[in-house]
C-alpha cells in the first residue's frame, strides 16, 4: 500500500501546550518552564545532551524514567522522550496530546475579538507554514530529492522526486 501519514498541526503556543499537557494527565506544578532550553537528566541522575524548554523531571514520570521535555523550534515544540519511556508517551499518547492542543488553539483563536490579535495569530501561522516548507525543502535536498511545489487553495503540495543522477 502507499503511505498516508498525518503529522498533526505543529504545537507552537506554549500556553495551549501546557493546557493540553494538563488535559492528558500531567500536573501543571510538575512542569518546568524555561525561556532558554535546559539540559534533560537521565535516570541515573546524569545530564543528557538533549535540552528542552518545558521539562517534566524524571521523578514525576516514573521509577527508572528519564526527564521528558519539549524543545521550542521554528516548526513548533518537539517532544523529547527516551526509548524507555516511549511505551507510556508513545504514538497514542502524542496523538491525544495533539488533539487537545488543537482544541485549545482553536478555542483561543475563536475567543480573540481584537482584529490585531487575530491578525497576529494568522501571521504566526503563515510564519510556521513557511518554516515547515523550508524544513522540508532542506531535508529533501539533503536526501537527494528534487522538490516540485504547487499551490492548491490554502494548501501547498510538494512532490519529492528522487534524483537519478
Amino acid at each position, binding site marked *: *500500500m*502507499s503511505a*498516508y*501519514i498525518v503529522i*498533526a498541526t505543529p504545537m507552537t503556543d506554549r500556553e495551549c501546550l501546557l493546557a493540553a499537557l494538563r488535559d492528558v494527565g500531567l500536573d501543571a506544578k510538575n512542569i518546568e518552564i524555561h525561556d532558554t532550553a535546559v539540559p534533560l537528566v537521565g535516570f541515573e541522575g546524569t545530564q543528557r545532551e538533549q535540552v528542552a524548554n518545558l521539562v517534566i523531571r524524571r521523578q514525576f514520570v516514573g521509577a527508572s524514567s528519564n526527564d521528558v521535555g519539549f524543545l521550542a523550534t521554528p516548526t*513548533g515544540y518537539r517532544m523529547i522522550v527516551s526509548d524507555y519511556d516511549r511505551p507510556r508517551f508513545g504514538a497514542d499518547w502524542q496523538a491525544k496530546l495533539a488533539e487537545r492542543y488543537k482544541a485549545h488553539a482553536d478555542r483561543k483563536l475563536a475567543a480573540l475579538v481584537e482584529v490585531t490579535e487575530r491578525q497576529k495569530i494568522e501571521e504566526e501561522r503563515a510564519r510556521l507554514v513557511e518554516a515547515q516548507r523550508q524544513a522540508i525543502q532542506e531535508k529533501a535536498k539533503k536526501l537527494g530529492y528534487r522538490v516540485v511545489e504547487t499551490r492548491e487553495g490554502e494548501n501547498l*503540495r510538494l*512532490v*519529492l522526486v528522487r534524483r537519478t543522477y
Partner: protein
Amino acid sequence: MLTKPPLLNLAHWLPRSRVNGPGERFVIWVQGCGLACKGCWNPDTWSFAPRHLVSAETLMGWISATPGIEGVTFSGGEPFAQAGALVHLARKIREAGLSLMIFTGHELHELRSDAAVELLSLADIAVTGRYVESERDLTLRWRGSRNQRVVCLTGRYTPSVLEAGTGETEIVLGSDGSLVFTGFPERALLAR
C-alpha cells in the same frame, strides 16, 4: 427488490495525488486489512471497525467534482476485503472514463471470490503482494518492497509506465502547518 449496495468503510481520501499511480489521481485508502504486514505504513487502517462510512454514490460525487484527474486509486487497508462494495464504485469510475489502479496485499491467484474477480476486471493496474520489510526498496515506482508486482490488466497502460519514474513522496502542507505524507516516504523524511 433491489438491495442497496453496502457502504464503503474508508480511512482517508486525497482528491489529488501524483505519486499513487499514473498522472493526477483521486486516492482512497479503505479501512480494514487482515494481512498485518510487518512494517506497514498504515497500521491505523488495519481495524475493521467503522471509520468513515460512505456510499459509492457520495464518493463518486466527490470524484466527479475533482476536475482534471486521470483516474482513481484504491489503497488501504485492503481494498479486496470490501471488494463487493468497491465494485459499485469501480463501475462508476470506468463509466466516467477514468482509469482505476488498485493496491492489494494479495497475489493475483489469491483473488478468487466472485466480487474480487469482478473488481479486478474493472482495474487497469494492480500492484500486488505483501509488503515484506526485508525486501524494502523505495526506489521502485509504486511499490514498497521488491517482491511486489505492478500488473497492467488492460491496454490503457503498458509496463513502460514503470520506467517513467522512481519511488516518489508527496507532502501536503496545510494552512495550519499540518503535514500529510503519501506515496513511499523514507523514514528520514518523517523524522522531526
